[in-house]
């Protein structure tokens, strides 16, 4: 990740980088398809300049104006995959509102204006040898590039994938292709409750020696991991979502409170995040 994006909220280096690291570019739609009843996969042909990505970082997308939907602000979206060799950038997203509704109407060959890459991605500490990914909803997309990264690093990976129903479980094949041991739970199967998962994860800590948590997509699961992590002294990171306007750090719209030495401090999800230390989230 470029050093200039590692913003520390209370100190800004005086040095000025005149080399742009955030780019606004047009990307052409290569593939755009439903992967289940709610989620779509969007694969873009993207210029090399924006493919200096990292797991957990995001792009700010200018969704098109359609007959039905007239989004005004950009929409932030975490990266599902990036491939510098193929010049591809992809997103896996839930069609939920005005922005994603408009995006869903993009056709192959059409162009999408994107700004990025933005934000701070996941930090993979050398001491984290046995990571556990816990993903639900959009988290199944956000954590996918992280799984690839762990596969590249050759660290044995376990992934708990949660969804409302089995048909909404995405990325599980991708996680498996990264060598992950995938444990799928769903609301319809009745095994996705916090109580059930707490017991499951405590078992994994004992049997697999889990030493780091990575999560995204559910506040409930984040709280659960904070609690388990605090009890077992296991650290980790979480990728958060928040309403954004500028996506770059100018507007201060996307703040959330975080624990700091003395008291709570507001940090920008777009800039200091979207990935944060699991225990610092209030």
């Amino acid at each position, binding site marked *: 990740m470029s050093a200039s994006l590692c913003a520390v909220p209370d100190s*800004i280096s*005086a040095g000025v980088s*005149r080399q742009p690291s*955030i780019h606004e570019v047009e990307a052409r739609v290569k593939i755009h398809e439903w992967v289940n009843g709610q989620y779509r996969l969007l694969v873009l042909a993207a210029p090399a300049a924006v493919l200096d990505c990292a797991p957990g970082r995001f792009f700010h997308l200018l969704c098109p104006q359609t007959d039905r939907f007239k989004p*005004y602000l950009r929409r932030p979206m975490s990266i599902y995959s990036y491939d510098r060799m193929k010049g591809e950038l992809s997103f896996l997203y839930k069609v939920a509102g005005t922005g994603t509704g408009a995006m869903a109407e993009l056709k192959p060959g059409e162009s999408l204006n994107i700004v990025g890459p933005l934000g701070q991605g996941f930090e993979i500490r050398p001491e984290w040898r046995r990571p556990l990914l816990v993903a639900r909803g959009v988290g199944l997309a956000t954590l996918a590039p992280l799984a690839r990264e762990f596969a590249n690093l050759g660290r044995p990976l376990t992934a708990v994938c949660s969804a409302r129903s089995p048909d909404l479980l995405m990325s599980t094949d991708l996680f498996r292709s990264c060598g992950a041991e995938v444990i799928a739970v769903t609301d319809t199967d009745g095994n996705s409750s916090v109580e059930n998962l707490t017991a499951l994860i405590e078992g994994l800590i004992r049997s697999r020696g889990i030493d780091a948590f990575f999560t995204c997509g559910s506040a409930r699961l984040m709280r659960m991991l904070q609690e388990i992590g605090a009890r077992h002294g296991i650290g980790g990171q979480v990728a958060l979502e928040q309403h954004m306007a500028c996506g770059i750090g100018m*507007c201060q719209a996307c703040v*959330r409170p975080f624990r700091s030495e003395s008291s709570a401090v507001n940090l920008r999800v777009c800039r200091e995040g979207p990935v944060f230390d699991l225990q610092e989230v209030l």
Partner: protein
Amino acid sequence: MGDLTTRIGALTLTNPIMPASGTFSEELAEVFDLDCLGAHVTKTITRAKRPGNPVPRVCEIGGAMLNSIGIPSKGAEWFLKNIVPFYADYEAPLVISISANTADEFARFAEEVSVPGVAAIEVNISCPNIEDDGKAFAMRPGPTGDVIRKMRSATDLPLWAKLSPNTGEVVEVAQAAEATGADALVTANTMLAMAIDSRTGRVRLGNVMGGLSGPPLKPIALRMTYQCARAVAIPVIGCGGISTVDDVLEYLIAGARAVQVGTATFISPTTMPCLVRELEQEVERRGLPSVDALIGTVDIADEAITLAEYA
């Protein structure tokens, strides 16, 4: 290429395009070279630290944005130590926007931020005046004059008064700012607005009300720019809903000597450098000696009409 140089009082800008306060920060240097801008205008700061408003702080509505960010501020000391030095590497003049609760506080704060590296102070008088029942200073000529007069005796830096579209006394407020020592006017800040989710009945901003910005604000701020440019001798800087070079031209023709670009930067972070380039081309295309030749050239068929009642 067309000459874009413009003068705002004692300051010479290489071009009339600058950011609107609150929509610009150091991070934009990661998108383009900030020295292509006519000036840099920082987000409003207050002397003391402020946390800002509860979220949601922004929402979109009908091709516009509402915001109630609430001027979160890390305070004067932090700003002078971290932000002012960042801009020292740039040629473009640094304009810092400040806010305060009373006219005396404005003056003390202006003195404190009058340091080397700061070229001008933009006075955000759209904030509530705690000595006037919470009404914004910029609502009336009296409180506006009090702030500018006291600041004028506290600093030698140029003072740019940022007016509010929420007042019914635009001309009187503008003239009060000029009479008490403002060097320029900025027309205008956001317009007070609100939005409700009709499905849930819930307000869409954490602070209930917020400021409207984006293209729908343009005709209102353009009208204010026109009114002020006719009513005062000091330069007027247009601000409100600018996203295309046509918008820039309209403001210049209405009488603005420069413009500020705000919300458009959120939609496209490269808006400002594009506008500089396009304005240069436009000046050349029209065969003008400089951008100056456009300023205040609005063609009004019958001058008397503008003096009639508006409604």
